[in-house]
């Protein structure tokens, strides 16, 4: 399988503190990858390096063969990102924010308009899409930011805690959408603390602790169920 995301010997230091230590991972096309770890393990730091928000101290992150730091524009062209905190421009309405993101990805206006229509229906945004961001609840923001991450039809989606603040109905909607998208060839790199979601959705997982990978599942490993992952996670991270 051709790797879509490659993390090559990546280290990130903040002063003398090593947040991520010589991380090496590769995720193939259409894979739903779960990235797990206890608090402060280095999950968000890794995600920020993949998305270009942090520069690695050493090593490189490649998206579709492009180095995110040396060749950021082509690398990010096929990238969608949902941060752990769904911040958006508070003075823009949800619709304006989606037009803005579409424009940032240089999409034609007509296509953005069409996609906004699709996402209004898919994520049930109709009630609040024309209100300003400052009026939104956490769940509304999360749905808008998810739509923004997918509006340009990315090949790679990086998600940091996707279900924070979502009600059960929206949560189901998001899970179904993400799973369906991977069958269409979308590669998903997801960090979450919700182990049952990982069991339900992910094809493969890795566990990080103190900046180092302590467990990485091989492709085609048997699927876990009935809380096996929780037992394994607690055992590995204690």
């Amino acid at each position, binding site marked *: 399988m051709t790797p879509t995301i490659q993390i090559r010997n990546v280290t990130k230091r903040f*002063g003398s503190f090593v947040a991520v230590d010589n991380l090496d991972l590769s995720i193939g096309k259409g894979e739903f990858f779960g990235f797990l770890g206890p608090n402060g393990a280095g999950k968000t730091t890794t995600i*920020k390096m993949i*998305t*270009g*928000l*942090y*520069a690695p101290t050493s090593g490189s992150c490649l998206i579709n063969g492009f180095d995110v730091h040396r060749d*950021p*524009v*082509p*690398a*990010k*062209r096929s*990238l969608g*990102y949902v*941060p752990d*905190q769904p*911040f*958006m*421009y*508070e*003075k*823009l*309405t949800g*619709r*304006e924010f989606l*037009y*803005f*993101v*579409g*424009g*940032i*990805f*240089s*999409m034609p*206006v007509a296509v*953005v*308009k069409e996609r906004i229509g699709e996402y209004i229906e898919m994520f049930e945004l109709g009630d609040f899409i*024309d*209100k*300003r961001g*400052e*009026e939104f609840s956490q769940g509304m923001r999360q749905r808008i930011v998810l739509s*923004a991450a997918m509006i340009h039809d990315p090949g790679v989606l990086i998600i940091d805690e996707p279900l924070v603040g979502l009600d059960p109905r929206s949560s189901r909607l998001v899970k179904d959408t993400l799973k369906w998208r991977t069958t269409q060839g979308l590669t998903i790199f997801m960090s979450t603390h919700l182990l049952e979601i990982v069991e339900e959705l992910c094809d493969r997982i890795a566990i990080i602790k103190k900046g180092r990978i302590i467990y990485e599942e091989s492709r085609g490993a048997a699927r876990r169920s009935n809380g096996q992952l929780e037992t394994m996670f607690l055992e590995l991270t204690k």
Partner: protein
Amino acid sequence: MPQFILILNVKANAFIKNVTDFRLQSVFKNLSSVLIFGGVALGVFLLSRAATGYLLQQAHIGLFLFHRFLSMLLYVFFITVNLGNMIVCYATLYKSEEVTFLMGLPVPHLTIFAVKFIDNFFYSSSTLLLLGLALLLGYGSYFGMSPWFYLFTFAGVLLPFMLTAGVLAVIVLMILIRVASRVGIRWLLAGIMIIYLSAIYLYFSAVNPVDLVQQVMKHYPDVNAYFGYLDPPFVRYLPNHWVSEFMYWTVAGDPAHASWYLLTLFYILAALLVTAWMVARTYYYKSWVNASESRPPGSGRPGFLQVRSMEFGREGILPRPADVVLRRDFWVFFREPSQWLHLLLMFLLLMVFLVSISSLELKLTQPFLQTISYLVVFLFDGFLIASISLRFVFPALSLEGDAFWCIRSAPVSLRKLYWQKFIGSFLLIATTAEILSVASTSVLRDSPVLILVGSICTAFVALGLTSLNLGAGAYFATFREKNPIRIASSQGASLTFLAGMVYLGAVVALLVVPLNRYFEILIIRGTTSPGWLAIPLVAVGILTAIVFAGSTGVGLATLRRDF
């Protein structure tokens, strides 16, 4: 009380940790602060001493007039401290996350109020306090005052004077927020603007500096006498008058008379502190709830401003993504009341300045005085441009805010984004600066050469100040701060403003000798010699290029930092 001390202690520790952070970047920042603040303070000290000496020894205006000019300066100073405290108070006492956190704890509201008021006063007034001290030192050193004078005047006069302005600001703000919940924020803000502009206009109309000079100069050479009967009656009730009177009677050798004004200042400050305490006890929590529940005008819907050509979902003139960044900046700016209201206020002040200057007779017959008046007007133009740049250009990158992840993770060249912000800001600042320059220079002399020189210098200054503010704004970027006013009044912003003043001072220094030579030839021989002005223009151009390259380099390098 223990809670009050505990919170202040935590704040003091955070401050101490900040200034004793010995990482290379922090040491560089702190050293730069000391150098620039120290340099400017030294400049103000020298200027204050030289101006005092010039006015008393060369211009022979006498002690009374000198202290009336000081009183006018203090009035503007008082309004600045008052307005600055009021603006920053709103962010500190009402919109800060710290207050929200403390309100959820069993801490009395009055304790929160007291802590945040002290925090706010020193945050928003520390630069002005330093400048006030430098002015005081310059003044005192001319009169050969003892060290006790400085200590006493700083702690016993300057600090209470500024505190009076600060306490008054917080009292008015608490009442205004309560009123705003009934009349609406827009009307209230418009009302405040009108009140402050009227206060400045009415004060200067009443004291009438030109008339005052003529009245006093009738008694020349006996101009050191006291002409208090010339003061309009209401002036006697103003704190700036008490301070200037204290200074006058101190240097006149009548401490008994001076102490009367000092006591008045203390009594009024004490009365205001008690009033603030009482108003806070009744209104602080209520007004905090009002401010927390209030929505900005037009929130929840796209807004009252309709500009169809700037709406999203339309084909733009610029290529994408530049087009959507422009649209976003437009809407984010015009949907934030503090942004467009400040812009409006600044343009009103520019208009007041232009109207005021057009009524002055500045075509002088002595070359040196003509040079001074030309450079003072140029410096004032520069000061206004520096203020506008600081307020609107410095926060430009910080205002990307927490949502900057959206741009940073997208296929957008950050260099292009920086240049787009620079070009947009420069066009606006340069246009404003040129209008100001042409309008103000034409009242000095009907000379196309001088207008051209002023225009070229202004273009350089606009370029220098825009690049300085954008670059420094990127370097000191605080993405967590949503309030543009707080961003523009942060320590980094103060440092940038002072650096801008140093740059303006250097431009003036490069112009002074050649300009004086030009006026000598023009006024004495009646011919023009533009050649005298070519060399300083080149020098100003080189200086600006250095400022531009340095600031832009720092700004672009900063964009590579982790977000």
